[in-house]
């Protein structure tokens, strides 16, 4: 059962991800991205990470996707065929790489790798609380660095978009 559910989510994620780049109408691409985000959230739920699933839907499916759609409508792009002519080259490049990856993974000794050995999952625990505690104790330093990244992104966007500074615009 678990395998089946995983197979469904993983399959839809893969197909939707391919459609994002393969569809010619950008709005359809964005919509298939939405489908992908929802299925990623579903995958999180099967892993008992409800908080991540909620964040995935609120942040990605909600905020970021709306931003994409907004930009698309602002630029009014209906069809973009510039890159679709290159699909043969892309396929010729990606197919061998993909096969190589499969061969590598098929040759793996499943006993040798113990996935996520150091991160046992207690499904009973409240994982929102667990994430909060980990984020503000063990991972405090990376968390603060991430906050600086957001600061740079915000100020950078303002500096680059503000009129009347720099060069002849002064």
């Amino acid at each position: 059962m678990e395998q089946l559910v995983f197979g469904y989510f993983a399959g839809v994620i893969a197909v939707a991800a391919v459609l994002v780049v393969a569809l010619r109408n950008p709005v359809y691409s964005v919509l298939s991205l939405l489908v992908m985000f929802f299925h990623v959230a579903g995958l999180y739920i099967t892993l008992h990470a409800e908080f991540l699933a909620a964040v995935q839907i609120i942040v990605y499916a909600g905020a970021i996707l709306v931003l994409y759609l907004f930009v698309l409508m602002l630029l009014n792009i209906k069809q973009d065929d510039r890159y679709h002519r290159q699909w043969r080259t892309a396929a010729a490049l990606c197919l061998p790489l993909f096969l190589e990856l499969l061969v590598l993974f098929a040759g793996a000794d499943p006993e040798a790798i113990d996935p996520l050995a150091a991160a046992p999952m207690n499904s009973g625990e409240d994982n929102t609380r667990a994430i909060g505690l980990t984020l503000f104790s063990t991972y405090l330093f990376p968390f603060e660095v991430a906050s600086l990244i957001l600061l740079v992104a915000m100020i950078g966007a303002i500096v680059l978009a503000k009129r009347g500074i720099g060069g002849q615009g002064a």
Partner: protein
Amino acid sequence: MTFSSGDLLLVLPELLVVLAACTVLAVEPLLAPPQRDGLAWLSLGTLAVCMGLIASRIGHRAEAFGGLVTIDDYGSFWKLLLCFVAGLTVLLSYSYLKEERLHIGEYYAFVLLALSGMMVMVSATDLLTIYLGTELMSLSLYVMAGLKRSEPRSLEASAKYFVLGAFSSGIMLYGVSLLYGATGSTRLTVIGSAIANTGSDAPLPLVATVLLAAGFGFKLALVPFHMWTPDVYQGAPTSVTAFMAVASKAASFGAFLRVFLEGLGGLKTDWSVLLLVLCVATLVLGNSVALVQTNIKRMLAYSSIAHAGYAMIGVVAAGWAAEGGRDAASVASVLLYIAVYVFMTFGAFAVVAMLRKGDVEGEEIEDFTGLAKRHPLGAFMMLVFMVSLAGIPPTAGFIGKFYVFMSAVEAGLAWLAVIALIFAVVSAYYYLRVVLVMYMREPTEGTETSPRLVLSPTLSIVLACAIAGVVMLGLYPSPLVSLATQAVRALQ
């Protein structure tokens, strides 16, 4: 696992840099434009204090934040170098921004924030933290590349850098996630011991290694991940180009070496072959394409690609060498090479930044025509930097190349040293062409906007530091060699 105030003390240099950046951001709108010069001096003062703090920690080793960050000699070596470069950048920008009429107070904040990202990169011992440091550095650099907004090329550089940089970050993250899946941790030490247990033929770490090499390859501008370099270096304001070419490359090498030696050390035999291919491709392509460039910034961009290739020789030699023994010397040669590269490349870009043709920047190699007649001292400095970049004794460039080539020979890669030597001779052609144009060619009469050098006290300090570094390290390299060796000893 909680943190104590001791942890904060250990990352005090980083905190000071961030604090100074925030102060610059907060104070800048309150100041009248003439007073904003003070921001540069504030940044410089902070950097000086940081260098003092870092230098006082040399010889000690401590872990902070539960092992996410390690303060050791290796990190201190890079941090000293990076703070120094950031100081030079502030000095160079001080007069360059005035000349270009780019009055952006946030500029110094971005320099400092990029620096804090770099400092995180070189002292982090956890893949997630290294990744976040890389992003902090890159994001600041994307913005800085686009600061000359009146020029479309600058904006194009920023956009191109951003898109390709984001793409490379994605590849790097994919590698990190595979390593996490295979070993259950993002800590380099845990990954190292997990790989040692599973043996070197497990596929997941191998795929992750390839992806990490590609991700770092973008940051280091190795062929075939170099395509962004010439366009970005040419389009960005010259002071930013100098900072990018030198500091971001040094920080990326710092993080790259730590990841590949501490974390993926068990896969040495596998990645050394991979990096060998990248290294030879970088040497060949970087040097050959530089031959046909007419724009000095593009030429220096390809030269910086080639220099990443030379430094990579040391990394390959470290991986190639038999267990134990000589690989510490090979890694030390990489540190030495990058330190030398910092001085000569920054100096060359500083001269380019002060060359002006009429009201705009002189960027073509032709603009250097007859410079020796009008500015003998400036031309002589450019001569020294070019000679050093070409690796001719008695300059520092020779010392750097010498140690790197020696490590290749000792690792049994004599043919690689021979190839590198051949391309070093090729590179002498395009470096010395600049010298030829400066000294041998007469300026054509009637050029109404003949190029000139703009000198200012701060620029003189930058040039004096760079030239002192190039000459001193060329004649008396042993202090730097021993510092690099001591730094490498801190790596596990």
